[in-house]
């Protein structure tokens, strides 16, 4: 088993989800995070002053455990469906999973 952690744009979520469904992924987990990139600067303006904040790009993390052999396909699928072609599309990491247990079993 291998864990795939993809940091994507929230606005691309539905497309990625549909793409994953199509290649047969049955389950995954996601949660929202904030991505800090120190390039990013003006994030709004309030009462005449700019909000300069490097912390506020909202991203969504998809966490998917798949057999190692499926990983390249899944990564390719996400990489394609999550892309807008502009900076800030996100990254995909893999990390080792040493065991899986189904709760209750």
């Amino acid at each position: 088993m291998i864990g795939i952690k993809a940091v994507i744009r929230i606005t691309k979520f539905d497309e990625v989800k549909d793409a994953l469904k199509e290649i047969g992924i049955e389950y995954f987990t996601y949660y929202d995070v904030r991505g800090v990139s120190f390039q990013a600067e003006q994030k709004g303006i309030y009462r005449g002053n700019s909000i300069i904040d490097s912390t506020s790009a909202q991203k969504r993390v998809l966490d998917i455990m798949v057999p190692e052999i499926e990983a390249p396909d899944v990564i390719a699928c996400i990489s394609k469906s999550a892309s807008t072609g502009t900076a800030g599309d996100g990254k995909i990491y893999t990390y080792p999973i040493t065991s899986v247990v189904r709760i209750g079993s």
Partner: protein
Amino acid sequence: MDTLAVFQDSLAAQGYLTEETVTLTRTMVDSLMASNKTIAADLQALKLSAGQGTQDNQFKIDNLWMLVASALVFIMHLGFATLESGLSRAKNTINILFKNTVIPCIGLLTFALMGYGLMFPGFVAGTSMEFFGFAGFGIPLPENGETAAYNGKFTFWTDFLFQAMFAATCATIVSGAVAERVKLTAFLVFSFVYVMLVYPIIGSWKWGFGWLHTLGFYDFAGSTLVHSVGGCGALAGALLLGPRLGKFYKGRINPIPGHNVTSAVIGTFLLWLGWFGFNGGSVLSADPALVSKVILVTCLAAAAGGMSATLTIFTLSKNYDISMTLNGILSGLVAITAGADQMSPLDSIVIGTVGGVLVVVSVLVIDKMRIDDPVGAISVHLVNGIWGTLAVGLFGSLSGLPQLGAQLTGIVACNTTAFAAAFSIFFILKKSMGIRVDEEEEINGLDTYEHGIEAYPNFSLK
């Protein structure tokens, strides 16, 4: 009446003598006279009773309007609570709501205890040059206090209620400027003293017929007496407290947006609604011409203030900043308050428009001066309180140099006194019990420290 004419005509035509004459007996004449007397007495009685009925009804209407106006002013406290907490961060929400909930309670009770006696000390209207007077503790019912004899328009109870609803407002104004860092107990002590002593004493100068009233200073519903006085407390508090952590970080002005714009909008609309009673009730009767004009110009000034603030900030920063729109509406309301009964609709639109520009500029300048006012209370209430009071000398039926002079006198006198008083109170508190929460409490939010819980503890997680 024609029958009498017939009588007269026959007298005249016949030289008072004809053949077929009627000779009257004494009884007959007596009864004729008695008849006239009865009618006359009846008429007199009716005059009284009709007058009484009319006056009773007029008393009933005036009194009713003042009670409705009191209810409208009451709901302003909820307006302040939601506006101020909406413009602050979630972690301090309970703190702000708590302050704005207990302040009307404190206000009602202290105004009953001392404030009313200080505000209406019985100065002689028109001649008194007094600065201070005290009619006594409590609110004992004056003779005839429950009848039209009290002031022809409403009862003593109504009088007190309407005034008491006003009183708490100035502490509520302060609350916004010191939000997110003031120690709760210190603020409660400040409010107590400010509402019970400072507000009514300054108020007595004009509304209690003291020296400013005698000098011709005009402040219809309190641009100065309520809003500037509150705004001075806000300024003093903000200065002595210093800015919130992170507001002026590394030489930059770091905006700290509030947590709940829905709440802020609710607050602003409730304040506007309350102003129907704040200004409309300050007519002190249900006089149709005056009340309707006052409410109309109040609404026009609010609308003009909202639009001009919106356009001003849009010009400056290219976005529709709703917090400025809300501040602009309130600025129009504050600015029209001093002369709401003296202005034409056009005057009020001009006054509101200027108010909307002023509030935006003022917020930016105050930020630049490194004074941290989370909700813009100083810009709304102090700056526009001054503007509105001045405007009485510039626009409307009272305008003219002498009035302008009187207005300036009043502005300087009330604001310096209020500021000095507020500064002293906060200063003494700072040196004794301390007025600012410690850094950890400020970072983690005042709610969990002073109130035991957060405002939205079970909101997003089940």
